[in-house]
């Protein structure tokens, strides 16, 4: 039981902020926006980390940019648009739904549908 609990804790532990910079926000809402944005933007150097967790110097610079833009009153969408215009959709962990990403978004559901049809036909034959 103890082992099982440990495993569960281990599997579902939330990633801790590795970055140790401090930012001063004037209110809690800005701080939350900063956290949400940096958690959902990808670091371009170490590509499987987000901006919040990465220690790469570029990630620190990009965090600084996000911070400055939040402080100067830009909306989340403006910040995301700026970064996408520089680094492309690659910087988003959640790629937008458009013709280029149609297969990416719809693919899993299509495969699921095929699987269901296949299963249904296989079961019916018995």
């Amino acid at each position, binding site marked *: 039981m103890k082992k099982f609990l440990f495993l569960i804790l281990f599997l579902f532990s939330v990633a801790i902020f590795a970055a140790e910079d401090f930012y001063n926000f004037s209110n809690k809402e800005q701080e939350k926006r900063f956290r949400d944005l940096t958690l959902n933007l990808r670091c*371009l*150097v170490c*590509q499987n980390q987000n901006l919040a967790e990465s220690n790469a*110097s*570029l990630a620190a*610079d*990009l965090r600084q*940019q996000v911070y400055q833009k939040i402080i100067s009153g830009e909306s989340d969408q403006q910040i995301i648009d700026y970064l*996408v*215009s*520089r*680094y*492309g959709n*690659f910087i988003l962990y959640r790629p937008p739904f458009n013709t280029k990403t149609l297969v990416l978004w719809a693919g899993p559901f299509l495969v699921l549908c095929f699987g269901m049809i*296949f299963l249904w036909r296989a079961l019916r034959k018995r």
Partner: protein
Amino acid sequence: MSFIKKSHITLPLILFILIIIFLWKGLNLHPNLIPSPLINKPAPYFELPSLLDSKKISNKDFIGHVTLLNVWATWCATCAEEHDLLLQLAQQEHIIIYGLNYKDNPNAAKKWLMQYGNPYQKIAVDQLGNVAIDLGVYGTPETFIIDKKGVIRYKHIGAISADVWENKLRDLVTQLQNESS
């Protein structure tokens, strides 16, 4: 007839082949090379101090000639690899190369150029790295090819080797040089 039906083999076989094709493709992908959304867009506005004199360098300096904009730093080991080739391009092929000195110590940069030679006609100092972010730079070295109108036409990520120059960049630069400005 065996007890396994034909249709029970074909579907897994098709899936297997599909997966193999995808994995095979995956072996040759380079996810570290992120395509730049700035291609065919004008170089973003910037104004930075020059490394070697007291002038300012801006995106307007790209107008009128084809420019290689090379993002480099003395702390970047790969930048040293391409340095000889850049010198050769500047001296023998008269290519106009600008440098963007990225998050570097200006004194170290000057010393480095004295020691190894300077292929750059102009060098902008980007100590904070903000102009590099505007250019979508995520690693050094990166080299932009900018046409006579100041529009970014290509970006090469990583060091320029003789092979890269001959097979990828030279023809593009020649073609851009022949475009009217």
